[in-house]
């Protein structure tokens, strides 16, 4: 069995080549998926329910094995490794926190994976404290995870994955059940990870969460990739958006109304400064 090594350098950290996947009951979930991901890249996978987004990312840490085609992670065929081994470098934060929390305390919950991956005791303590502090969970350290609120559970799930410091982080519907403040925190976490040269994949319906981050966008529909490109071009293309059954971000709609051309503002702050510039020009 091959183990994943990141000491080598790769142009493509993840590579899908003509990947098809069928569920055991015969339903085709992915058709002819091909794309490559560079180290340190931010990718958002968008699409309607049942488009195949979650199925696609589950191939990256080996939870699912392609029926046809090849998935390479860190240059090695994902089929040749187990999910437990690949997960050391590919962390997935699952949509439903209740599907993974089982320990008697928040602290032990964070330590569970670190022990599975064979971390030294001193490092386990250090990483646990870092996760508790970074995600404002220190006050709940000795409480059972089941007693936390929905938002806190979600935060814990992100914390427990980041505790083992994976090279690739996949966030599956990270904004579900999160209020606006927590969403903003998530944006900051994603930015922090990118500054550390981590590769981040967002699987989401929440286009307003994605737009300020301006990631590369893959739009999926019926198990196929219908668009793969820059955020500005993809999310402002009406025909592509309708193919992927996704509504454009409010700032794109607003920019169109204002008659602006690409690149559209990524935040309300940028939009405000554009309006101020235009107003100043009109006055002059």
């Amino acid at each position, binding site marked *: 069995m091959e183990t994943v090594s990141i000491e080598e350098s790769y142009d493509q950290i993840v590579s899908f080549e003509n990947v098809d996947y069928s569920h*055991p*009951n015969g339903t085709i979930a992915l058709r002819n998926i091909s794309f490559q991901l560079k180290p340190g890249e931010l990718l958002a996978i968008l699409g309607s329910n049942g488009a195949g987004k979650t199925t696609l990312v*589950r191939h990256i*840490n080996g*939870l699912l094995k392609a029926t046809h085609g090849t998935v390479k992670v860190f240059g090695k065929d994902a089929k040749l490794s*187990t*999910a*437990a081994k690949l*997960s*050391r470098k590919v*962390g*997935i934060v*699952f949509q*439903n926190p*209740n*599907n*993974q*929390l*089982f320990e008697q305390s928040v602290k032990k919950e964070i330590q*569970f*994976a670190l022990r*599975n*991956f064979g971390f030294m005791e001193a490092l386990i303590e250090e990483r646990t404290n870092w996760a508790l502090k970074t995600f404002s969970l220190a006050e709940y350290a000795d409480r059972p995870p*089941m007693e936390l609120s929905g938002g806190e559970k979600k935060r814990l799930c992100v914390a*427990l*994955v980041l505790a*083992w410091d994976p090279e690739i982080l996949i966030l599956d519907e990270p904004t579900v059940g999160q209020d606006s403040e927590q969403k903003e925190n998530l944006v900051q976490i994603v930015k922090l990870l990118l500054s550390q040269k981590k590769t981040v994949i967002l699987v989401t319906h929440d286009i307003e969460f994605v737009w300020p981050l301006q990631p590369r966008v893959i739009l999926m529909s019926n198990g196929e990739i219908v668009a793969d490109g820059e955020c500005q071009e993809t999310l402002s293309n009406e025909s592509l958006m309708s193919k992927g059954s996704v509504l454009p971000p409010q700032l794109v709609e607003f920019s169109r109304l204002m008659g602006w051309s690409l690149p559209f503002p990524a935040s309300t702050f940028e939009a405000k400064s554009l309006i101020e510039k235009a107003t100043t020009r009109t006055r002059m």
Partner: protein
Amino acid sequence: MSLDRKMQWIAQGFLFVRGHTVVHRLDPRVRLITSLSLFSVALLSHSVEELSIIIAIVLTIAGIAKIIKRFAKSMLFTAVIALIAFALNLFFYPTSPHQAVVFGVRLFAVISSTSLFFLTSTPDELEHVMKWMRLPADFVMVFVIAVRFVPVLLLDALQIMDAQRSRGLEFDKGNIFQRMKNVIPVMVPLIAVALNRSLDLAEAMDSRAYGAAKKPTSLYHLALRRSDYAMLGIVLLGVVIGVYVSLYLILF
């Protein structure tokens, strides 16, 4: 094969798949009577030949219902149980090898004939049959919900296993005690999710006035058709022959 693949493979043998064959179109009460008749004749039977005929009839009906693959999966475990029963009878009970074989084959015939009904009936049909049997409404509801939630719980279990494997847990590693310990990270969230779901369901049922009427009306009513009467006739004839043969073999 990994543990979750094994679970999926096994579960497919027990889950209902809506079919459109002659067998599925029969009234569920007729299917129940057919299964019970085969069950009863198998219990009475004392010859391997007669039991083999019963198993052949069960297999033929499963074939007509196009459920032979799923049926074979569920019967795999029945075969193991039958083998154990045969071995126990042979080695720990003062009986002849022939009687031990009869016991094992009879057990297989009894379980397979019962499975036939469950593999060809929807939870809705189960509900209708249980109501027709005048079982208490609450009991029927609890039973039907339990049956209906089996695939949902299975899906939950697979998702939880995926989540824990993504945290470095290897289910197939270690000795028997380690493997038993590995099940805890699956069982705890599964029970928690199931309890939460049951509470949500209870609230949803309360808010839709479950229990408000002492005798709730039913939208669907079971009615026998010609094909059902024909099948009942065949079953009755089969039972008479089966009982006659069984008694003849016992008495003479």
